[in-house]
C-alpha cells in the first residue's frame, strides 16, 4: 500500500461512496479520470459550438451573423477551450484512469491532490465562458494572446489570464501526480524499459508540462502587470518589446504542441499492436523517439515567428531544427506501419480510428515540414494553410486518438460493450467530413486567405462553403459518439474479461469492469516490451 493520502484507511475499509459526495470528494483515480473525461467532452462540445459559429459566418463573404469583434472572440475562445479544456484534460483523464492499471499501482500517488487538480478545472472553464458576457467581451487576441493586443483589451482578457493561471496549476499538479505514480508505484517486474507506451508518453508529456506551463503562467503574468501595474514588458513606448512576448509564449507553445501529440502516440502504440495481433515493432526506438521529440521541441519555438524580422542565422537554425523533428516522428510512423505489416489485422472501431490517425497525422506532419521552410513560411504565415495543418494534427491527431482510446478501453471502464456499428459509422462519418472541412483549407491558404478574419474576398467563397458544410456535418456526427456512449453505459452488452484478442497489457488482466479498488496489493509481473504481460501473480482487488 503506497498511496500517501489515504493514510489511516486500508482501502477495503471503505466501499464505494455514493451520491454527490463521491464526486466532490473523489480520491479514486477511476472516479477522477471519469470526471476529467466528461469535463473534456463538455468542453469539446462548447468549443465545437464556437467552431460552428465561425464556420457559419464564413459560409459566404460579408458579415452575416457576427460582428468582427465577436468573431475574434469566438476564434480565440475556440482555441483556448479546445487546447486547455478539451484535449489536455482528456489526456490527463485517460492517464488517471489507466496508468495505475497499466503499471500495477493501487491508485495515483497523491489522491487528494488529484481531486484538487480536477476541481480547479470547472472554475477555470467558467471564467473563460463567462468572459463573453462582461463589458468588452471575451479575449479576442487569438489563442496565442499576442501583445500588444492582449495588453489593450477589456476585462475579458483578465478573466482569461486568471483562467490560464488556474488551468496551469491544475495541469502541473496532474503532471506531478503522473510522474510520481510512474516512477515510484510500478509493480515489481514492471521496469521502465518494459512499461507500456502510453505510460512512457504520459511520463514524458508530464515532464514537458512541468517545464513549460510555468513559462506560460509567467508570460501571461507579464501581460497582467503591463495591463494594470505600469510595467512595460511588451510596450514599445516604454522600452519593452512586443516580439519578446512571442519568444516567451512560443517557448511554451511549441512543447505544448507535443503535450497534445505524445499521449496520442502512446495510445496508438497500444491499439495497433492489439488489432494487428503482433507486438509493437521497435519498442525501444519508440521510447527514444518520444524522448527525442520532447527534447527537440524546446529548440524550435521561433519557427512560429519567421516573419518577425529574425536574423537569417536564427531562421536557418530554427528551420533545420524543425525539420529534424520529422526524423523521430518518421520513426514512429514507420514503426506503426511495421507493426501492421503482415499482422492478422481486424478493423474494430478503435483500430479504425488508430489507422485514420496514422494516415491523417502524416498529412498534418507533411504540411508541418512544408511550413518549417522559412522561405515558404513567409508566404504561408497566418493563412488558412496553417489552420489546415494544425487541425490535421490536433483533430485527426489528438482527437481521433482520444476516440480510439475511449472505444478501446470503454469495455474495461464500464463493463459494457459499445455499439460496434454505431462506432464504425462514427468513424467513417468523422473521417469523411473531417477531410471535407479541412482539406480545402490548404488550398485557401495557398491562395492567400488569411486566418482569423470574419469576411473574405469573393474568390475564396467556394472552398469556404465546402469547409462550412463539412464542419457542420462533422460536428453533428459527434452526437453519434455521445449517443453511443450514453446508450452503451446503460444498455450495452456485458463485456468479456478481455474483449480484444490481442490486448496483452496489464489492465486487461483484471476483471471487467475494473474493480473500484484495483491492485490494492501490487502484483508480481513478468513483462515484455510495451508492457506485454507474460505472467502475473498476486494483485488483489476490492
Amino acid at each position, binding site marked *: 500500500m503506497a498511496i500517501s493520502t489515504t493514510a489511516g484507511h486500508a482501502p477495503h475499509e471503505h466501499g464505494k461512496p455514493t451520491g454527490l459526495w463521491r464526486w466532490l470528494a473523489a480520491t479514486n483515480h477511476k472516479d477522477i479520470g471519469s470526471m476529467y473525461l466528461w469535463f473534456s467532452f463538455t468542453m469539446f462540445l462548447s468549443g465545437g459550438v464556437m467552431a460552428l459559429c465561425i464556420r457559419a459566418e464564413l459560409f459566404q463573404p460579408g458579415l452575416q451573423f457576427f460582428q468582427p469583434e465577436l468573431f475574434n472572440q469566438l476564434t480565440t475562445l475556440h482555441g483556448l477551450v479546445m487546447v486547455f479544456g478539451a484535449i489536455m484534460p482528456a489526456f490527463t483523464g485517460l492517464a488517471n484512469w489507466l496508468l495505475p492499471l497499466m503499471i500495477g499501482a493501487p491508485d495515483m500517488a497523491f489522491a487528494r491532490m488529484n481531486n484538487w487538480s480536477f476541481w480547479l478545472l470547472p472554475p477555470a472553464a467558467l471564467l473563460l465562458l463567462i468572459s463573453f458576457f462582461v463589458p468588452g467581451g471575451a479575449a479576442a487576441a487569438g489563442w496565442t494572446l499576442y501583445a500588444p493586443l492582449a495588453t489593450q483589451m477589456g476585462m475579458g482578457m483578465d478573466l482569461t489570464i486568471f483562467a490560464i493561471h488556474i488551468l496551469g496549476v491544475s495541469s502541473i499538479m496532474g503532471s506531478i501526480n503522473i510522474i510520481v505514480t510512474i516512477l515510484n508505484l510500478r509493480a515489481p517486474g514492471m521496469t521502465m524499459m518494459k512499461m507500456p507506451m502510453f505510460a512512457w508518453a504520459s511520463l514524458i508529456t508530464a515532464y514537458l508540462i*512541468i517545464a513549460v506551463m*510555468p513559462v506560460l503562467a509567467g*508570460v501571461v503574468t507579464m501581460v497582467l502587470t503591463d495591463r494594470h501595474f505600469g510595467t512595460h514588458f511588451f510596450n514599445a513606448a516604454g522600452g519593452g518589446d512586443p516580439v519578446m512576448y512571442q519568444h516567451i509564449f512560443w517557448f511554451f507553445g511549441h512543447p505544448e504542441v507535443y503535450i497534445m501529440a505524445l499521449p496520442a502516440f502512446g495510445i496508438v502504440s497500444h491499439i495497433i499492436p492489439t488489432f494487428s495481433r503482433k507486438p509493437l515493432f521497435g519498442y525501444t526506438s519508440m521510447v527514444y523517439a518520444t524522448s527525442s521529440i520532447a527534447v527537440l521541441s524546446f529548440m524550435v519555438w521561433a519557427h512560429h515567428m519567421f516573419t518577425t524580422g529574425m536574423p537569417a542565422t536564427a531562421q536557418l537554425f530554427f528551420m533545420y531544427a524543425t525539420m529534424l523533428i520529422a526524423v523521430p516522428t518518421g520513426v514512429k510512423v514507420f514503426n506503426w506501419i511495421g507493426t501492421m505489416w503482415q499482422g492478422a489485422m481486424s478493423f474494430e472501431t478503435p483500430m479504425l480510428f488508430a489507422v485514420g490517425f496514422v494516415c491523417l497525422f502524416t498529412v498534418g506532419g507533411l504540411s508541418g515540414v512544408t511550413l518549417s521552410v522559412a522561405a515558404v513560411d513567409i508566404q504561408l504565415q497566418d493563412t488558412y494553410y496553417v489552420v489546415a495543418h494544425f487541425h490535421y494534427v490536433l483533430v485527426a491527431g489528438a482527437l481521433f486518438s482520444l476516440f480510439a482510446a475511449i472505444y478501446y478501453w470503454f469495455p474495461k471502464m464500464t463493463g459494457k460493450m459499445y455499439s460496434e456499428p454505431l462506432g464504425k459509422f462514427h468513424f467513417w462519418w468523422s473521417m469523411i467530413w473531417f477531410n471535407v472541412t479541412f482539406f480545402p483549407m490548404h488550398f485557401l491558404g495557398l491562395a492567400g486567405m488569411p486566418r482569423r478574419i470574419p469576411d473574405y474576398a469573393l474568390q475564396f467563397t467556394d472552398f469556404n462553403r465546402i469547409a462550412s458544410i463539412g464542419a457542420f456535418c462533422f460536428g453533428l456526427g459527434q452526437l453519434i459518439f455521445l449517443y453511443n456512449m450514453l446508450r452503451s453505459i446503460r444498455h450495452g452488452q456485458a463485456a468479456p474479461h478481455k474483449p480484444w484478442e490481442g490486448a496483452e497489457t496489464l489492465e486487461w488482466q483484471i476483471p471487467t469492469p475494473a474493480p473500484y479498488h484495483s491492485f490494492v496489493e501490487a502484483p508480481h509481473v513478468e513483462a515484455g516490451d510495451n508492457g506485454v504481460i507474460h505472467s502475473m501473480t498476486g494483485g488483489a482487488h476490492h
Partner: protein
Amino acid sequence: MAESSRADNRVLLLKLGVIACVMFAFAWALIPLYRVICEVTGINQLVKADAPAPAVAASDLAVTAAPVRLRFDATVQAGLPWQVRPLVGQMAAPRGEFVRVDYEITNASNREVTGQAVPRYLPAAAGNYVKKLECFCFRQQVFKPGETRRFPVVFVIDRAMPADIGEITLAYSVFDVPGQGAS
C-alpha cells in the same frame, strides 16, 4: 514499505515542484537573457552601421534637393489622460534648412501628470538624418490639471540623407512617468 515509499513520493513531489518554480522564474529571466545573447553574438544586428557618408559633392546636392515629405503623428499610452496633436499633419521641407512644427499637448485630467515622449522615425533609417535642435521629448514634461501648452519642435534634415528617402513620418509615443507627478 508504505512509510518509505510515502517519503519517496514526498521527495519527488518536492523536486518536481521546485522544477515548476524554477521554470516560472526562467520565463522572467528570458527577458534579460535574450538581450544578453543578442548583444554577445550580435545576431540581431539587422541594420549594420554604414561607412561614414562621403562628402556630398555640389552636383549631387541638386539631385537630392527635392523637398522631403514630412508627416507628423502622436500616440498616447492607454490610461495617460493627455491629448497630443501636431498643429500641421504634414508638410514638405527642403533638406538642410530649419523646420519648425508645433505640437499641442493638453492634460485632460484634474491631476498633475508627468509624461515622457519618445520619437520614432519611419523609415527607421531616416532617424540618423533628422537633427533635432529643440523638442519636448528631450525631457519629462509636468502638466498641471487641465493645462494646455504648445511646444515647438525644430530640426534640420541632413543633406547627406540618401535620395531614396522621399518621405519621413515622425511619430511620438507618449507615456506616463509613474510616481513623478509632483516633481
